[in-house]
């Protein structure tokens, strides 16, 4: 019980520090603006394209506009997340290190695991807040879809984004625990995530069995099945591994600080 109590305290403290910081609102404004623009832009483009083909009489069978849109839009959004997520995680530990508050956490009767978990939950909650308007856009757009889109496909795509974001934030939290400088954490996280993102491209240039491993670890390869409506347990497992690895590495790096 006291465990949950402590976890909630860490979670709440972090959440407050995001919501009271102007930085969060700047990120939110940019994210909503760009994500909203692309939502309109891609949807409009698709509709016009289809209309054009239809006019020329080239359309013989029906087009699954909804699925097509989902695919293009989420691919754009993922690129946007690659830039935004490191900004959310960069201060998680670096700020505590800079301000000396890590000394308070490290000398209180709570474990490093609990602190890391509380912090991750809070930043995931922040991401969820940022993501929420996009869910509303989807509901509006897909409710007008004819033929109706399978709700499961949409849910799965969103779940994929959620898992992907949590994995990136978990890695970002670990990188944030490595230094006192938030900006350094941002740059490093961005580089690391881009590398993990494009591991399957890298894997083409090395021989087996390394290429198989790299290809499996690729965040991109793990993410794409979610867009095509397929729930593959191994990709879910991949993301969960990233999340747990991030938390584990964070606790180890904080432990190593106390030498």
């Amino acid at each position, binding site marked *: 019980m006291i465990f949950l109590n402590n976890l909630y305290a860490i979670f709440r403290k972090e959440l*407050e520090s995001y919501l009271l910081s102007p930085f969060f609102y700047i990120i939110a404004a940019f994210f909503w603006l760009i994500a909203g623009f692309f939502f309109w832009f891609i949807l409009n483009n698709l509709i016009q394209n289809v209309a054009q083909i239809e006019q020329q009489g080239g359309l013989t069978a029906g087009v699954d506009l909804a699925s097509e849109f989902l695919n293009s839009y989420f691919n754009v959004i993922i690129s946007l997340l690659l830039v935004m997520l490191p900004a959310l995680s960069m201060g998680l530990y670096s700020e505590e290190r800079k*301000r000396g508050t890590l000394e*308070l956490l*490290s*000398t209180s*009767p709570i474990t490093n695991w609990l602190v890391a978990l509380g912090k991750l939950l809070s930043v995931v909650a922040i991401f969820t807040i940022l993501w929420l308007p996009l869910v509303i856009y989807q509901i509006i757009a897909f409710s007008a879809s004819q033929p109706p889109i399978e709700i499961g496909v949409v849910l799965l795509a969103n779940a994929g984004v959620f898992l992907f974001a949590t994995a990136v934030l978990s890695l970002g939290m670990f990188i944030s625990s490595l230094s006192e400088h938030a900006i350094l954490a941002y740059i490093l996280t961005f580089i690391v995530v881009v590398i993990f993102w494009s591991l399957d491209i890298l894997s083409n240039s090395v021989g087996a069995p390394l290429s198989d491993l790299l290809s499996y670890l690729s965040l991109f390869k793990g993410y794409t099945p979610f867009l095509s409506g397929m729930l593959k347990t191994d990709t879910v497992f991949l993301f969960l591994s990233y999340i747990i690895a991030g938390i584990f590495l964070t606790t180890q790096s904080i432990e190593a600080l106390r030498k």
Partner: protein
Amino acid sequence: MIEVEHLQKIYGSTVAISDVHFSVAKGEILGFLGPNGAGKTTTMRILSGYIPATAGTARIVGFDVHEDSMQVRRHIGYLPENPPLYEHMSVESYLHFVANIKGIAAGDRQLAVTSALKKTGLADKAKVIIAKLSKGYRQRVGLAQAIVHSPEVIILDEPTVGLDPKQILEVRNLIKGLGGEHTVLLSSHILPEVSMTCDRVTIVNQGTVITTDKPENLMDQLLPVNIYKLLVEGDVYSIKSTLESLDGVNKVDIIPVGSRFSLEIFSSDKYDHLAKDLAKVVINSGLDLYEMNHNRPTLEEVFLKLTTQEQ
């Protein structure tokens, strides 16, 4: 309550503390006195469980600070050198947060926070955002977080640093009030401060304990009755050992002054007959004596002498 034996901490090739030992009884206030860099913060960080020692043991309330760190953390309140404050929080919500992670049950938190606010004189600042507080108030918030869970042992690293004289007085009185109920270890580099607030004082220098005693005994122990200052010309180094062997001489310092030398001789002898013996040694050795006087040093001067490295 606190037992420290042969504590040692080495960072790479730097020895932060080489042999620290002391013990603090229940309800006692122990002052940890030494110049900056003496190893005070390192010792306190080891006690709080923030860093492990290289060698030696430290126990708080019977628990080893490293082996049973979680147990120890439940029993201590710790104010690091820089108060660990979350600036975006109000004083009250910050203390609620600390009370929570220190393991105070939800139902008891409000009472604990109110009491800590009252003890540290922060009651009227409860709703103020910490970022807007002055340095003195921040230090008090730091103190409040160290006592909010009413720990048996309170460790305070330089609690009065950066405060104005009025605030220093208030904080000192606050610490004095903590004694009896709590066991307090407090560090400082200011001698009068610890001699006024503490039951006993441990003097550390360069990572080792020089002495531990009650403040009043410390004065007797450390204060030589006389310091003789002689201005001499000639080979003073040849007579240093002769002077040191004289009855009542504790310490001889030689400070070059132009072509001459100032000899500072510390003596615990209560009478002034050492003066003629010193003069005789100088004259009989064929050195020229230009000036001679003696006076009683202040406590600060002795402390400085004890803790300043001789080169």
